[in-house]
């Protein structure tokens, strides 16, 4: 009871000292906001469409009829604009824009693009020139455009195969034909067989069995062709779409990359606030030489560690809440479930604080504690941000940074609360306990030397 009362007295002292330092408060709130904005901007950079110069050398304005579809260059451009931000330029302007770094690539539609597509004799070639100065973006653009061209090819192939199948039907059943600009009437295999059957019947009636037999191979041929055409239909369908991909959109209202960016920004901001504040708060007890009084039974090392950890957690809660309110008011990110956010911010704050207190317990003075805290926390925070790397996940999972990032992301991205959020909360609590224990042990050794 006395330990709790004394811990609360020290907590009150720490909060009073924070309130007494407007510069520190400004840094505590302003710094995370600036870091959050910068990190969020950096992480959301990948979400913007890359700018690509578009040079159209096919100025005929012609269109191509593919089945029932009529395609023009504009239709093709509209498709490309879903993937990249197209800037229509002349060839020379495009080259200069690429040199100046205003665009990441130049996409050129050749002269005769539509007529080559119309003739079907040769495939039109679209050229893409990328900037060697922006290799990562260039590679992304290449992949996006390859995917677009593939999808368009696929649609065209399906249309062409549809045409072929209609032709097969025409050969089989007869009718009017309009293909590649040509028109005409076809009798069809079925009707041909009927004509020949009728002819054989007439020849038999007038006593010409020799002619009836002569026609027989022709009928057998028609039957064979008909059977083969029946097999051609499914084969043509298979060629049109060897593998199909079903793509559907998830529920609206969430922006995954923005959420990733903001979760990262929260981690960087709160991680640094929690670690540095706790490290400084504990080491300043030593710098003020107050530890020698507290160590005389006024407050056990464990209680002192607990007090500093809670102090850091409260600071993380306040700073995190400020950031969340700003985000909720100024962005479309869905920030809700405030109760869970309070738990997540407090638990992660405890984890960061315990880490900072350990650093503060090991360092001899405040400046060393701050420097060591920064040097240790930064790489661990960024390891926590590395996606899909087992080693990074393992290392950051040994500290509060990994599970804190997972909790923030879950609360920002998942529309419902998954069960593993509670596991993540447990992970955070465990990490906070382990680091607090280590800090208490280190402080105990130092205090009683």
């Amino acid at each position, binding site marked *: 009871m*006395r330990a709790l009362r*004394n811990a609360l*007295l*020290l907590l009150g*002292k720490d909060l*009073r*000292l924070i309130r*007494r*330092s407007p510069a520190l408060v400004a840094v505590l709130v302003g710094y995370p906001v600036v870091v959050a904005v910068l990190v969020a901007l950096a992480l959301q950079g990948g979400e913007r469409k890359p700018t690509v110069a578009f040079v159209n050398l096919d100025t005929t304005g012609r269109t191509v009829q593919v089945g029932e579809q009529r395609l023009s260059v504009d239709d093709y451009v509209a498709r490309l604009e879903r993937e990249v931000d197209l800037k229509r330029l002349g060839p020379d302007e495009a080259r200069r824009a690429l040199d100046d770094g205003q665009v990441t690539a130049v996409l050129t539609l050749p002269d005769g693009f539509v007529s080559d597509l119309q003739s079907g004799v040769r495939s039109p070639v679209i050229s893409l020139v990328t900037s060697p100065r922006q290799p990562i973006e260039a590679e992304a653009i290449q992949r996006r455009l390859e995917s677009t061209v593939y999808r368009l090819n696929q649609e065209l192939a399906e249309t062409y195969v549809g045409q072929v199948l209609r032709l097969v039907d025409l050969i089989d059943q007869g009718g009017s034909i309009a293909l590649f600009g040509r028109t005409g009437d076809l009798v069809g295999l079925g009707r041909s067989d009927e004509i020949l059957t009728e002819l054989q019947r007439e020849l038999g009636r007038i006593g010409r069995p020799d002619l009836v037999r002569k026609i027989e191979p022709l009928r057998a041929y028609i039957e064979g062709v008909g059977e083969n055409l029946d097999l051609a239909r499914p084969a043509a369908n298979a060629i049109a779409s060897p593998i199909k991909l079903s793509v559907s959109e998830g529920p609206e209202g969430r922006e995954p990359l923005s959420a990733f960016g903001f979760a990262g920004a929260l981690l960087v901001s709160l991680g640094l606030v929690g670690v540095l504040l706790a490290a400084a708060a504990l080491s300043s007890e030593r710098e*003020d*030489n*107050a*530890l*020698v*009084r*507290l*160590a*005389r*039974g*006024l*407050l056990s090392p464990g209680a002192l560690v607990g007090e500093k950890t809670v102090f850091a957690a409260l600071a993380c809660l306040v700073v995190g809440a400020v950031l969340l309110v700003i985000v909720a008011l100024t962005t479309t990110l869905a920030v809700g479930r405030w109760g869970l956010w309070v738990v997540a911010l407090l638990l992660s704050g405890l984890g960061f604080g315990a880490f900072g207190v350990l650093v503060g317990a090991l360092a001899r003075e405040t400046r060393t504690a701050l420097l060591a805290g920064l040097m240790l926390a930064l790489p661990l925070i960024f390891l926590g941000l590395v996606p899909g790397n087992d080693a990074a996940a393992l290392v950051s999972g040994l500290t509060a940074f990994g599970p804190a990032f997972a909790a923030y992301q879950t609360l920002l991205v998942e529309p419902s609360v998954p069960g593993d959020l509670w596991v993540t909360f447990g992970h955070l609590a465990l990490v906070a306990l382990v680091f607090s224990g280590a800090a208490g042990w280190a402080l105990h050794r130092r*205090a*009683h*030397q």
Partner: protein
Amino acid sequence: MLSARGLAKRYRRVVALEPTDLDLAPGESVALIGPNGAGKTTLLRMLAGVSRPSEGTLTVAAGTAARVGWVPQRPALYQRLTCRENLRLFAALEGVPDPEGRAERLLERADLVRFADRQAAHLSTGTMQRLNLAIALAGEPSVLLLDEPTATLSPEQVHRLWTWLTRLCQEDGLAMAFSTQSVDEAARHAGRVVVLSHGRAVFDGTMRELVREEGGDPDDRDAAERAFLRLVGEDG
């Protein structure tokens, strides 16, 4: 009031203080005197409960270490709190019934009223040492332990501090043990001296006994200094 038996401190293989006995009676003033590294601070820190002895026992008559007021050489206080806030906080931490009232009384007794709302960081060395001492009194101790309390003070500040300390001990009946490197200070303000050398208590008695034991004239003002130097092996 305070009794140490066989109190010793070792840091791994280094012996900072060999087993030492020390008794402190109510109202008594004892000086721990010795050169640097003799073990004075080590002994005081263990008596104050700041450092754990490697061996030996310590008994405080009142039963708890909280009844011992500790004045470390370097002021132990919050630099960015005011004098009043420091006193209130430490009185509350010590668990005294009325921390605010106790703080006000200490401000008056330590002549700190005019500095009450000044942050400790902005006090002069002497005033800060008075605050350091007042904080040690916040828990209403019966024993006061001071580690070289005048080491950083000017002669005038030393005089003021001892005048105040002497009055305080007389008024409250405090027992006091202080460490010093000054034989003169020990002779003036302690009824008994314990001489420490190389982590060992080599003498425990009055200053006159020390002089006599070393063959000097107890009425000779310099004899005590010579006797001390001979005892600690630094007489040339």
